[in-house]
């Protein structure tokens, strides 16, 4: 009997989830991100970017009078939790669009997005597999392949570097980065002389750096999502002779402010915050308006533009309609110009060099 009562309690609690009242004029969106655990270092930044964008719109009265609310769910970067939470948002809240990050959880939710016709919006993960995972998975950031082709070509042709070593994070993002760079650099005519992974979250790069330095590459290509300031310190420590090149993850204010990052070059998926925005963001959250918050701010802007269009056209806000609206609008002018010819956005890519604690653009590659 007691067992039955306990079961009944849980059933009731779960049921209560279903009957949460929703304000009539509020449009609800979802986000399934790693908000706790080791992956939270990126997930919480993404969360702040979305929240900031939504707060901004709501402060101006919302979209055509409709307030936007984002329900954040914590998947701890686990695929099973992601699937459960996806179903929770879609089933109980009838959410038309869900923000996601990290390739594993995004890939786990992709088949559901297809079946449920729910828009999945990825603003941070760049693994190539995300490009064609589902017609409903929209990437507001280019996959790594395009960006790294730019970098590899620049390094070989413009900077004249013939040999390279790769330091990559041992997760989907890092492995995709390694593969893409390796392909592009060798295609350009260069040679990869060494490659070493580091575990995600581990900021002790020294053993890997020492080994890579021993291969005497002309340039070291780095693809790690966080801990770049520590990397700069450790590269300086071994008195490295090689050039250091990175992808857009190097657009980290803390790295740029680090004197040891002097001379690092990197590609940047162009994203610029207007004057005062970065300061306002920092005032609000106490953290920098970094690469990931900016990207998710942009992703949120894209989704909200689609909502605006649907409201104007008097269409219901469903995943299917949002997707149609996205391709109708096609070009979004948010923090950067984002063009959707396919599910994956094309944006302007810059080649930057970090000099005197500032990020200077040395070359511009417009969106294709």
């Amino acid at each position, binding site marked *: 009997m007691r067992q039955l009562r306990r079961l009944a309690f849980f059933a009731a609690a779960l049921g209560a989830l279903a009957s949460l009242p929703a304000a009539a004029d509020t449009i609800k969106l979802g986000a399934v991100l790693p908000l706790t655990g080791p992956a939270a*270092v990126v997930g919480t930044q993404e969360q702040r970017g979305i929240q900031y964008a939504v707060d901004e719109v709501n402060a101006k009265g919302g979209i055509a009078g409709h307030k936007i609310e984002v329900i954040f769910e914590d998947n701890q970067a686990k695929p099973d939790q992601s699937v459960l939470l996806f179903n929770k948002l879609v089933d109980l809240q009838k959410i038309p669009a869900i923000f996601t990050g990290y390739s594993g959880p995004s890939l786990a939710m992709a088949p559901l997005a297809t079946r449920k016709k729910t828009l999945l919006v990825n603003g941070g993960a760049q693994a190539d597999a995300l490009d064609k995972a589902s017609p409903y998975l929209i990437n507001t950031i280019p996959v790594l392949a395009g960006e790294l082709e730019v970098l590899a070509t620049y390094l070989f042709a413009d900077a004249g570097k013939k040999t390279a070593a790769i330091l990559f994070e041992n997760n989907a993002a890092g492995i995709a980065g390694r593969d893409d760079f390796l392909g592009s650099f060798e295609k350009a005519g260069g040679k990869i002389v060494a490659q070493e*992974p*580091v575990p995600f*979250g581990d900021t*002790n790069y020294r*053993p890997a750096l020492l080994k890579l330095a021993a291969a005497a590459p002309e340039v070291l290509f780095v693809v790690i999502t966080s801990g770049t300031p520590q990397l700069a310190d450790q590269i300086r*420590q071994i008195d490295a002779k090689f050039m250091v090149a990175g992808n857009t993850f190097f657009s980290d204010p803390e790295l740029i402010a680090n004197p040891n990052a002097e001379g690092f070059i990197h590609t940047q998926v162009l994203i610029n915050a207007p004057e005062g925005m970065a300061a306002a963001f920092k005032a609000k*959250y106490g953290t920098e308006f970094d690469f990931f918050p900016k990207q998710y701010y942009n992703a949120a802007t894209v989704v909200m533009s689609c909502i605006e269009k649907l409201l104007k056209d008097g269409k219901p806000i469903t995943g299917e309609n949002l997707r149609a609206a996205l391709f109708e609008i096609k070009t979004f002018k948010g923090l950067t110009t984002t063009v959707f010819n396919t599910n994956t956005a094309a944006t302007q890519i810059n080649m930057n060099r970090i000099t005197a604690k500032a990020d200077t653009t040395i070359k511009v590659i417009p969106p294709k």
Partner: protein
Amino acid sequence: MLWLNLLLNGIVWGCALGMVAVSFSLIFATTRFFHVAHAAVYGLGGYITWSALKHGLPEWAALVVGVAVCAAVGAAIQKLLYERLDRSGATHLVILIASLGLSAVMQNGVAAIYTSNILQFGLPWGNRTTTIGGALLTNTQLLTVVFGLASYAGAMWFAHRTVLGKRMRAVASNPFLAEITRLQPRQVHVAVMAIGSAMVCIPGVLVPLDLGLQPFGGVPILLTATIAVIAGGVGSITGAFLLAVVIAVLQNLSLLIMPGEWSIGITFGIFVIFMLFRPRGLFSS
């Protein structure tokens, strides 16, 4: 001289790991609890010291504050949680789960207050380098070696030369006998938790000084340290410290012959095989 660089790097890392291992060894040998929240105490030490620094305290005073807070937290954990569980006859599995719960509380508390971003101490002297035997070591790394050796020596002195240390070893070797004599094991447990927690604050500050603070940063370090403690032989301070250095050096040197992604796996593989041949550790009595 790649191998020399890797070796030195391994020794430095081994000293950091060794401090965690020795502190865990003191606690584990005496209480026999899988105190996984030790990783959270390690993390807490770093964040408290960071806060004290940001409030304008000089480095040494900030470290003292961190150590004191950790010691108090350690004693409180023993007194308020483990002792109660132990009195109610809880098994080690139950204590392990409670300790996991405590880790979740502490680490997420830290994450809620300080965010999950990697925080930096930003002390310029920490990154200045000195050349030693052809390799460049930072001041933080040198400090890690100094503190590592001092912690080891301190723990040995404590265990073998002080009254409390002798009581601790007596409790560790025979809890039942300790109970019926006047060793008062419960008091000893509290003291040992305070000392072990104070000790783990030091690597808890030194490692993040070098590598940055992360709320969940203590977990991987404690995992490796636990393996050093067990492979060294429970109760052997020398075993714990030595094995920590050996593991760190092996992980570094293994890069000479294999890609880095396999070094952790191979280390644990060797450990499993080692345990089959020496099921009670290297320095077992």
